C-alpha cells in the first residue's frame, strides 16, 4: 500500500512540475518584455483571487471549460479524439436556443428541456463523424475539424437568415430572437451566500454550474460504476484485447462519440442562457480546443478535469490581468498554455518511465 502511494505521488507531480515550470517561463517572458515581475504577479493576483468577485469569476469561467474538457475526456476514454467539440457546442447551443425561443413551456419543464435539446444537438453534430469513424474507418480528427468549419458557416447562415431576430430585438448585431424568460438560467448566488461566501450577483454563477456538476457525476458514474463504462475503458486501453474479450468495439465507440457530442452541447449554455439571453454565432469560440488540453491535463477523469478547468480559468483571468495592468500582451497566455501542455505530457512520460524502472528493480 505504501508503495502504491509513492507511485501515485509521482504521477501527481508531473502536472505540478508542468505548472511550476510554465509559471517560471511566464516570469522570464515578463522580464524579457521589460516588465517588473512583481507588477505581473500583482496584476495576476488582482484579477484572480484578490476579491471574492474575482474568485467567483474564475469559478464561473471554469464552467464551460469543464464541460468542454469533460466531453473530450469521455471520448478519449474510448480512444476517440473528438476535436469536434467546437462545432458540437455551436450546434448544441443552437438547438438548445431553438427549444428556448420557439417552444413555450412552464419554467420547471423548460430548463430541463433546453438542456436536453442542447445535448441532442451536440450529439447530432457528432453523428456523421462518428458513423464515418466506426463504419468506414475515417479518422475522426479530420472529419470533426471539417464539421467545425461547416457548423460555423451553418449557424452564421441561420442567425443571419431564417432565425434572425434583428427586427424583433432592435439590436444591430446579428442575433436570434430573445429566449423565452421561462428558459433563462437564473443566478444561484443566493446559494453561495447562504453557504457564507459573499458572491455578488454580477458574476455568472447560474444553473449551468449545477448542470456541469451533474454532468461530471454522470460521467463518473457511467465510466466507473456501469458495465458499459468498463467496456468503454477496455476499448480505450486496447481495441484488440477488447475484440477478443467479445466487446462490441464499434458500438461502444459510436456510443462514446455521441455522448461526448451530447456533453459538448452543454458548453455554450452559460453564455447563451445566462449571459446573453439569445443565440449568435459570435458566442465564445475555441473552447473545444481548450477542452482537449483540459482533458489531457485532467487525465480524463471528471475530478482531474475539474481541477484542470479551474487552472485554465485561472490562466485566462491571469491573461486579462496582465493585459489590463502591465505591458505584457494577453497572447503570452497562449504561449504558456501550449508550453505547459508539452511540459506536462513530457514529464508524464518521464515519470512513467521512472516508475517502470523502479518496478523492474523491485521485481528483481
Amino acid at each position, binding site marked *: 500500500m505504501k508503495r502504491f502511494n509513492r507511485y501515485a505521488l509521482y504521477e501527481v507531480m508531473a502536472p505540478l512540475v508542468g505548472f511550476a515550470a510554465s509559471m517560471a517561463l511566464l516570469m522570464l517572458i515578463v522580464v524579457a*518584455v521589460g516588465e517588473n515581475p512583481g507588477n505581473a504577479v500583482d496584476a495576476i493576483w488582482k484579477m484572480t483571487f484578490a476579491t471574492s468577485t474575482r474568485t467567483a469569476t474564475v469559478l464561473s469561467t471554469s464552467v464551460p471549460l469543464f464541460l468542454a474538457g469533460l466531453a473530450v475526456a469521455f471520448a478519449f476514454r474510448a480512444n476517440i479524439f473528438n476535436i469536434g467539440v467546437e462545432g458540437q457546442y455551436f450546434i448544441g447551443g443552437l438547438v438548445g436556443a431553438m427549444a428556448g425561443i420557439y417552444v413555450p413551456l412552464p419554467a420547471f419543464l423548460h430548463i430541463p428541456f433546453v438542456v436536453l435539446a442542447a445535448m441532442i444537438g451536440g450529439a447530432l453534430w457528432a453523428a456523421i463523424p462518428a458513423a464515418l469513424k466506426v463504419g468506414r474507418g475515417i479518422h475522426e480528427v479530420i472529419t470533426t475539424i*471539417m464539421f467545425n468549419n*461547416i457548423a460555423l458557416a451553418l449557424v452564421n447562415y441561420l442567425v443571419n*437568415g431564417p432565425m434572425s431576430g434583428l427586427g424583433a430585438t432592435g439590436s444591430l448585431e446579428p442575433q436570434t430572437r430573445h429566449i423565452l424568460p421561462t428558459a433563462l438560467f437564473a443566478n444561484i448566488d443566493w446559494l453561495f451566500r447562504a453557504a457564507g461566501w459573499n458572491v455578488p450577483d454580477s458574476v455568472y454563477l447560474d444553473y449551468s454550474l449545477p448542470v456541469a456538476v451533474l454532468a461530471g457525476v454522470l460521467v463518473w458514474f457511467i465510466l466507473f460504476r456501469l458495465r458499459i463504462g468498463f467496456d468503454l475503458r477496455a476499448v480505450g486501453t486496447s481495441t484488440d484485447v477488447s475484440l477478443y474479450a467479445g466487446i462490441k468495439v464499434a458500438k461502444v465507440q459510436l456510443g462514446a462519440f455521441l455522448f461526448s457530442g451530447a456533453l459538448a452541447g452543454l458548453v455554450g449554455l452559460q453564455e447563451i442562457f445566462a449571459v446573453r439571453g439569445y443565440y449568435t454565432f459570435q458566442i465564445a469560440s475555441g473552447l473545444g480546443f481548450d477542452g482537449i488540453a483540459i482533458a489531457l491535463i485532467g487525465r480524463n477523469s471528471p475530478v482531474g478535469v475539474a481541477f484542470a478547468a479551474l487552472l485554465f480559468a485561472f490562466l485566462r483571468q491571469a491573461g486579462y490581468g496582465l493585459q489590463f495592468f502591465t505591458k505584457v500582451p494577453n497572447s503570452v497566455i*497562449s504561449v504558456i498554455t*501550449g*508550453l505547459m501542455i508539452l511540459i506536462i*505530457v513530457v514529464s508524464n*512520460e518521464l515519470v512513467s518511465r521512472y516508475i517502470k524502472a523502479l518496478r523492474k528493480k523491485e521485481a528483481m
Partner: protein
Amino acid sequence: MHWGTLFDYICKGLDTSAPLAFAALGGVFSEKSGVVNIALEGGMLFSAFSIVWGSIIFHSLWLGLLFAVVIGMAFAAIHAVVTITYKVNQIISGVALNILAEGIARFLSQNIFGQETQSAMNPYSFPSYRGMNVFSLVVIPVAILSWFVLNKTVFGLRLRSVGENPEAADTLGINVTLMRYSGVLISGAMCGLSAAVLYPSRWVSGMTGGRGFIALAAMIFGRWSPIGAVLASLLFGYADAARISFASSIQIPSQFVQMFPYVLAVVVLAGVVGRSRAPAADGVPYEKGED
C-alpha cells in the same frame, strides 16, 4: 465563359492550391515515417509570420523564405522531440503546438510590429501573374522531387520502412529515430515553403484558417503519395478558387459557399476510404523491445 476568365481561374486555382499542396507534401513525409503531424496548421501560421519578419530583417525575400523554412523546421523539431524521443501522443503534441504557434506569432507581432493581430506590410514579395503568386509553380518540381526521394532513393525506402514496420527496419540496422526525425523536419520545411505562397505580404492572426487540416485531408485522399497529395490539393484549391471567383454570380447564401470545401473534404474522404491505407505504423510510437 470568356477564355481570359478561364485562364484567370486556372492561375487563381494554382495560387489557392499551392499552400495546401506544400503542406500536404509535408504531411506525406511525416506520416510515411510514422508520425502524424496535425501541427501543420501551426507550422504554416508561424512560418507565414516568419517570412514577413525575416524578409524585413534581412531586406530580402529569399532570405526571408529561408528564415521561414528554418523556423518551420525548428517548430517541427519540437514535435519530433516530444513524439519520437518522449513518445508522447502525436495528436496531443500537435494540438499543443497549434495553440503555441498562434500564441507565439501574436506575441512576437505585438512586440515587433506593435499590433497583436497583424504584422506590418512586407515590402518584398514574389511577382504575381494574373492573380497567381509565381512561386506557386515551384510546387510542381517539389512534388516530383518528393516522389523521387520517397520512391527511388535509399533514404526514401528507409523512411517508408520505419513507417510501415519499425521493428523490422530496426533489425535491419536502420535508425528508426533518425528517419522519423527526418520525416518530421521535412514536413516543417514544407510548412516554410507553403508560407511563401500563403500570403507573403502580411501576417494576419488566424490567416491559415484550417488549411493545415485541409492539407491533411488532401494527403489522405491522395493515398499518402506525393503526386496524389498534390492532385488532391488541386481539387480542394480549385474548389476554393471557384468559391472566390464565382460566389457573386451564384444565387445561394454565401455561408453555403463557404462550407463547400469542407463538405467536399468530408464527401471525398467518405468515398475514398477503404481504398486508402495509412502507413501501418502511422501514429504509433516505436518502443525498442527491451523488456
